[in-house]
């Protein structure tokens, strides 16, 4: 796969700044008092960490690894890189801000919602994505979007790095 840089660390942080503003506005409008943040591993956790800091939330971030909830588990098996999901707060009755790096087919979000509901019954779930790209296969839409990108079906966009984030576009020949 050929990788091409799309957006660098600084650019990503300013996009997340915009997302933080939208989150504040939406939280006020929808009355999402005391909401908790959950990031989806691995890229979503990076975006969630940045949002968590910018919003000044003190409660620890939740992280979700959806490996055991993927709808293609019976076709491709287990991702051996799986890490524990960590949610230290009680989900029951909480407003949740669910964060991912890229929303594409919507299948990851379906799996994440199922996993969240195995922890409890949240009051609401609001979805934030750094990148919204075309190609939805399920009726799932983000409430807070950093960037909208249109790509061909053999192109992929993903968030890499940790301290030095980068959005890259790869294309399959």
């Amino acid at each position, binding site marked *: 796969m050929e990788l091409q840089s799309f957006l660098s660390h600084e650019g990503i942080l300013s996009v997340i700044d915009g997302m933080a503003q939208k989150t504040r506005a939406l939280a006020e409008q929808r009355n999402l008092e005391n909401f908790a943040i959950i990031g989806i591993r691995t890229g979503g956790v990076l975006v969630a960490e940045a949002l968590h800091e910018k919003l000044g939330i003190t409660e620890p971030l939740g992280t979700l*690894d959806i*490996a*055991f*909830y993927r709808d*293609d*588990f*019976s*076709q*491709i*098996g*287990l991702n*051996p890189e*799986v*890490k*524990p*999901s*960590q949610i230290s707060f009680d*989900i*029951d009755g909480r407003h949740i801000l669910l964060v991912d790096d890229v929303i594409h087919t919507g299948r990851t979000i379906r799996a994440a919602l*199922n*996993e969240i*509901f*195995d*922890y*409890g019954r949240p009051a609401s779930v609001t979805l934030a994505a750094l990148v919204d790209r075309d190609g939805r296969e399920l009726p799932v839409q983000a409430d807070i979007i950093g960037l909208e990108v249109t790509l061909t079906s053999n192109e992929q966009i993903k968030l890499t790095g940790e301290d030095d984030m980068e959005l890259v576009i790869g294309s399959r020949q």
Partner: protein
Amino acid sequence: MNSANLQLDDNGSLKHFLTIDGLKREHLVSILDVAESFLNVSDRSVKKVPALRGKVVANLFFENSTRTRTTFELAAKRLSADVLNLNISVSATAKGETLLDTLRNLEAMHVDMFVIRHADSGAAHFIAQHARPGVSVINAGDGRHAHPTQAMLDVFTIRQMKGDFTPLKVAIIGDILHSRVARSQILALNTLGVSEVRVIAPKTLLPHDARESLGVHVFHDLEEGITDADVVIMLRLQKERMDGALLASEQEYFQRFGVTQARMKLASPDAIVMHPGPLNRGVEIESEVADGPQSVILEQVSNGIAIRMAVMAMAMNPRALGGESA
């Protein structure tokens, strides 16, 4: 028994889990890491994940076992699989059905995974050799040969309590000669690179070439062997060994090899005490030690569920079918 090849697919991923023998350090670490991510499933309001939804797991127990069977059953259920428990010692074989016939019949019921415990060494390998492609086999103990999930839950517990394996001195006390648990533990500990594996046993309960064949330090004196140990593992003394010429009596065994609080003072001050169960209190272990602050015996049981979930999730590996259509 060429089990190394039998339990791995062409990509080196697990398709059966039969023995520690032939697995590399990376395999073992990857099982431990996956188990780690299953640990907190029991703290959630829904104590299961959907990974094996729609799959059928058959527990074939030709030998009695409460703990191993129930933790395998719970592990399969936490992965959302459907579970059949077959206590075969009292059913088919009593009517003369062969192991292969039993296998074929269950395959005809579309079972996806067999968990097998059998008194004959090699039984799980035999099933794995004859199972249809795509059917996975997990060894839950075969004869004197191997009990790999027990060994993995033991090293998982050690990692949880101690972190790094490399500086550790691990002492295993008891009937090494007849123990599948000990064989698997020693292989796992050596593969993970502990500093020293010691075995402590009377001469009658040790293979004569233990040092070379198992790669261990041999002690016949408990107090000598336990000195400075970081991990002290007792094995269950099988009552039937008492009938033969191998041991004089339970009392004498306890006097020479029973782990007591006084003897534990010789081990490292933060040493942990482990036992695969069921305990023979007053034979291989004193109650004060079994129930004391250094004991992690009940942690072993909880960890057994996470380890069994990990090997089942990893072995139910569709790539082993050659079905890379996704």
